[in-house]
């Protein structure tokens, strides 16, 4: 089955490429059509993914809060999120009179585009990647910060004081936490020696970095999880939309589909962040391998690589969801303190440790 999957995607892509080239004989046009196909298939993947994440979040929350969660619409409430989407689609998309209408309508689009762009270099399974560019990791960390522009835009253009405060908070927060995210990514880049996503995954063939890299990599994994939770504005770092303080923060004035796009972006971000964490630290689609235990590794290979990837990603998503439903929210100054006084110094020292480790070859 593993074999089947691998062959099917690569050959399918090659087949599409070849047949289009033969048919049109125009390089630019072929690339354009291929991009449209890639974008569409991403959308087809993302919408059910967000439905599932929405459902999962509700069920996890319910499970933690001694209640049942959605259980009326569809079997076990699984269609609840579809019903919600229909509701949001039918709602009136209000635009405040005094707002900057162009920016106000542009903001949710930018937020969604930013997080969809990050999907490009993620390896969903073996040989299953949209774009395996040589600076994959750098691309991810730079493109993911475009989202903050959308948030600032939303807050500024809404003509609402709560929105403005929320946007300012979010700006400060994302800019600061980007550093820690970047530094913990660097520690893996140092160990791998490459920024290409496929190289990073392949370097973990004889064991995942979280096991091979001793304590320093464990530390950067923890820092990555904390900092990226902050970067995607999820509780306990959801200051930008702190409900009890700023009603809904930067998206206070949004309704209907425009609001739904922020929600969509939140879930895509959640997935992306977990996918990156899974790729960097837990081997991505790489099955659980131990050094030279050939027989054991073979057994592990029986599970398809896509299952491995999604399993790891959803495990991390589950952890991040648990954060949200257990912790109170930090205050804005404590949030920045945490980054600048604790996480950043720790991750800087940690990068140094990882570098020494890589040079001396102390890792497995």
């Amino acid at each position, binding site marked *: 089955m593993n074999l089947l999957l691998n062959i099917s995607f690569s050959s399918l892509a090659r087949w599409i490429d070849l047949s289009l080239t033969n048919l049109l004989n125009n390089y630019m046009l072929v690339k354009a059509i291929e991009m449209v196909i890639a974008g569409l298939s991403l959308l087809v993947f993302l919408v059910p993914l967000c439905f599932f994440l929405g459902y999962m979040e509700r069920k996890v929350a319910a499970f933690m809060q001694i209640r049942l969660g959605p259980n009326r619409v569809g079997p076990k409430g699984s269609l609840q999120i579809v019903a919600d989407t229909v509701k949001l689609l039918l709602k009136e998309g209000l635009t405040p009179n005094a707002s900057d209408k162009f920016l106000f309508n542009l903001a949710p689009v930018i937020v969604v585009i930013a997080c969809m762009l990050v999907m490009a270099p993620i390896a969903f399974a073996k040989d299953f990647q949209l774009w395996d560019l040589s600076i994959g990791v750098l691309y991810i960390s730079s493109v993911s910060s475009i989202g903050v522009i959308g948030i600032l835009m939303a807050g500024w253009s809404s003509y609402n004081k*709560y929105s403005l*405060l929320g946007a300012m908070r979010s700006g400060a927060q994302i800019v600061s936490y980007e550093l820690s995210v970047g530094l913990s990514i660097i520690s893996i880049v140092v160990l791998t020696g490459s920024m290409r996503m496929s190289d990073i995954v392949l370097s973990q063939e004889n064991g995942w970095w979280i096991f091979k890299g001793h304590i320093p990599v464990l530390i950067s994994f923890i820092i990555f999880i904390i900092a990226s939770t902050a970067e995607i504005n999820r509780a306990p770092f959801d200051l930008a939309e702190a409900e*009890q303080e700023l009603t809904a923060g930067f998206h206070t004035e949004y309704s209907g589909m425009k609001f739904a796009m922020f929600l969509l972006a939140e879930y895509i971000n959640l997935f992306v962040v977990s996918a990156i964490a899974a790729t960097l630290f837990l081997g991505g689609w790489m099955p659980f391998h131990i050094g030279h235990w050939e027989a054991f590794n073979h057994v592990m290979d029986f599970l398809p690589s896509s299952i491995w990837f999604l399993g790891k990603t959803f495990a991390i998503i589950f952890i991040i969801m648990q954060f949200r439903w257990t912790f*109170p929210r930090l205050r804005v*100054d404590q949030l920045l303190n945490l980054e600048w006084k604790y996480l950043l110094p720790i991750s800087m020292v940690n990068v140094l440790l990882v570098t020494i480790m890589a040079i001396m070859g102390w890792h497995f």
Partner: protein
Amino acid sequence: MSLLGEDIVTGKGEFVINIGPQHPSTHGVLHLKVWLDGETINKIQPHLGYIHRSIEKMSECLSYRNFIYVTSRMDYLSAHINNQACALAVEKGLQIEATPRGRVIRLLMAELTRLQSHLLWWGCTGLDLGAVTPFFYAFREREAIMDIMDETCGARLTMNYCVPGGVMYDVHPNFQKRVKDIIVQLRSRFDEYDQLLTGNVIFEQRTKGVGYLSPEDAVSYGCTGATARGSGVSCDIRKWFPYDGYENVQFNEILGKTGDCYDRYMVRMAEMKESVNIIEQLINNIPEGDFQAKTKMVLKLAKGEYYQRVETARGELGVYIVSDGAASPYRIKYRSPNFSNLSALEVMAKGAKIGDLVAIMSTIDLVIPDVDR
């Protein structure tokens, strides 16, 4: 900044923001006008009266039997204790005393009311600080208490169970058993609450050293209840001026030390345990006899003034009745705890962040209908 209009920016680098009357953390229709410098609060001005119903005027138009029920609508979370205060004030005027059984039942109900009020407060505090989960855990026990009240009083929130001379009906046959069950249940759940919220690092950071209220200010602003006790000011009316037999039960008045949000929180948490202790002492010792003293159909208080204070879940409630000998009060004044506690909000929140304001408001435990009356 011209984008945001002139009314928003005062020109001094201050940012005026209206929190409420519809806002998730004001727990009702409180309207706070807040002057901000960035995220720091420079000034707060509460605007009240969105739910003012002139309960004092209504009470002046009602008979001594009927006005008690209006007071359930003031502090709806300690509705029974409000009723108790009024019943006691009327009893003082009539120079009668409730029957022993009536007094104990009242007291039990008052402590159950305090428990459910504090449980709701605990859930809301978590909610205000961004932790949604405690709310559901608090409601699990609160529902059980509400069911007990429902069974005996026929209502869950505004019970109207107190009448001058005792209580309206006898307790339900299941009452004792169910209260004993809830005591056992609560005892085990308090640890769970602590694990969920109290010991949390983020929670401690959010509350420790936040919203400081000095003991002098607490007295001067007339703060009572856990708001003042968090600052170490002894003000428990149950100890100072015992009523309805509080002098016969053993309990401690919990006092804080530092006067910050964390101490107010801890005082309330400990008060819940004290309430459970009080209930435990009384539940097996409900005296036999009448639950209600014989009173005339139309009550008329002798000419004079009667003041009764009780300890509600939020502080000292005073009922001041001026009687001219007629069948309804000439003047009635409710000294509500929230009204005074709210006035201390500005000293507590000045210089704090917006996030702190939410923490402070939740640890004062405001009930807006009680502020506005």
